[in-house]
């Protein structure tokens, strides 16, 4: 179904905007999101295994409000695989060098208990241009 006008496009934008806000600021929303860097660099360093591990955890623990979203690369090739955890109301947290064990550890601590694991986090040293 095609978008017929600029106004229609803007309506679609309104409807989708909330979850992206969650990723930037940790504002509102109902779901927890786990973003996973799935560009060539991420995949090459094992992101696919991490994706599978997290998906397994989600279904094993039967958690309904977690969504795993594959995204592109943030340029931190030195720390791939990278995941970002977005919990409503909290600042997004980025983890680097996530292997299978770390993924499970992060899942159990951060997703289940809401406790981020500081020692695995990465500081973001960039700012994204916003589109007005």
């Amino acid at each position, binding site marked *: *179904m*095609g*978008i*017929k*006008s*600029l106004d*229609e*496009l*803007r309506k*679609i*934008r309104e409807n*989708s*905007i909330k*979850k*992206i*806000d969650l*990723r*930037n*600021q940790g*504002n509102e929303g109902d779901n927890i999101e786990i*973003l996973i*860097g799935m*560009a*060539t*660099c991420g*995949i090459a360093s094992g992101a696919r295994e991490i994706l599978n591990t997290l998906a397994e955890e989600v279904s094993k623990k039967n958690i309904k409000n977690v969504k795993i*979203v*594959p*995204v*592109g*690369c*943030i*340029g*931190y*090739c*030195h*720390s791939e695989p*990278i995941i*970002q955890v977005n919990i409503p109301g909290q600042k997004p947290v980025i983890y680097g060098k996530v292997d299978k064990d770390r993924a499970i550890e992060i899942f159990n601590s951060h997703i289940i208990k809401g406790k981020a694991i500081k020692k695995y986090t990465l500081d*973001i*040293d*960039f*700012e*994204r*241009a*916003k*589109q*007005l």
Partner: protein
Amino acid sequence: MTVYRTNILVCGGTGCVSSASLDVYNKFKKLITSAGYDKEVKIIKTGCFGFCEQGPIVKIEPDNVFYVKVNKKDAEEIVNEHIIKGRIVKRLLYKEPNSKRIIEKHQNMPFYKKQFRIALRNCGLINPEDIYEYIAVGGYEALGRVITKMNRDEIVDIIKKSGLRGRGGGGFPTGIKWEITKNNHSDKKYIICNADEGDPGAFMDRSILEGDPHNVLEAMAIGGYTIGADKGLIYIRAEYPLAIERLDIAIKQARELGLLGNNILGTDFNFDIEIKLGAGAFVCGEETALINSAEGKRGEPNYKPPYPAQEGLWGKPTCVNNVETFANIPAIILNGYEWFSSIGTEKSKGTKVFALAGKINNVGLVEVPMGTTFREIIYDIGGGIQGNRKFKAVQTGGPSGGVITEENLDTPIDYDSLSSIGSMMGSGGMIVMDDTTCMVDVAKFYLEFTQDESCGRCTPCRIGTKRMFEILTKITDGKGTKEDLKNLEQLSYMIKDGSLCGLGQTAPNPVLSTMKFFKDEYLQHVVNKVCPTGRCKGLAKYKIDPEKCVGCTACAKVCPVECISGKLKETHVIDQNRCIKCGACFEACRFNAVIKPK
């Protein structure tokens, strides 16, 4: 020297001056002087903070407090409250637009993080396989505005005024390219996205296509509308399967939503995009070679003119832009050319993505405003040199560029500063070398690459780069002469002067620039037959330590070429000219007198 207690920094950049920062500056001067603080407080007019939409901007040091949109009246309050009483004027602090969080400290402001991401703005943030996420971050809004509200000249004007230049290497102003193609009349025109990223070590285009494919599609549609093309082509190397897959998905989704195809957003604008796979030849990044290859011909460049804007794909006017260039377009349309041109240096606007590689701690992609220095990128962002070794050089522009040395670490990076120091922007590869890197070896590495990637069309590049590579091999094998250095230089200049396309014309750059900055290292190789880093195995030398040698003749007996001389009980000597570096003497010596090269 007077030491001031406090500095008031008032932005004197074009953007802020236009919003009356000079008045604010003068006001501060007057207030501070009349308050008698002029010995304690200094007022400084600074360069652009790069945050012009919030100007005039005032910063108080060393408190590191940052005020935005300061007018003359506000200046009075700042002096009275902050300077005199030490109380921060909260209402003038910067508020993050979305969270409305108030930010006091400068370094906490996201803008003042070293990296600012325009081309990569959505990478890692949105799901590249979900068009709705792209729309959520403002995607296709720019296209919508352009095709419903703007005419083609207006768009050209915006892109021209933004100062955007080609990110693929040449740095040609994008707006002018669009304008020329727009002005060439033809029944059919094409817009091509050059995704034939071939610079060794550079992968920003791949990252953009993998992380934010719609951004490029949208930009191509904007470009297509502007120049009058209804057909876009993405020429991408087949070695990028994931990028191709995501582009495929993105094109399909955009077609489903009517953002590609006929009558886009209810207008009479038709535009569609096709993916063309390349075999990954470096030279196909050159636009005429790319077009030949896209037409199914041999991937080799043509003599220009005619330029693609005159006779391009299938002989029709064609505009070729690089992925990263396109990735800037929607943001420029939405945020305005003033915003974009407020970032960067005088002649190079916006940001540039660099791929950091080599002996650096944080290998990866960075996107920084033009004018950021090498030192900031390497040390502040890149985390410094691996193992805390000494920085030696950084290569930009890949095989077409040159080395930048310690003395130029503080050069603000832009197109012109790089070419003035003998390198070039290129596609943004940045390879960091430490003191274990041999510069002759580096030059040889690049020449090996270019002579292999030469299409073979013109004599200087086909045979000349091969000869350069041979001379460099001779030097690293320890057989070079001073004459070779002279010849190498002469040949380099001829190839620069005489080659048909950019690949050949820039191929000698790594040699010329290493010869310029590391002449001594070359001379060490050819005169002293020594590679100071020990990289060049052909120059490795076995030596006999006269202190330790007892003259047992064991080494001389095992030497297969009989190049060790010396009488019994006298110090032995290796004839370096005949030595084949087999190491037999080292193994044979029972007194540790044979020194193995490192």
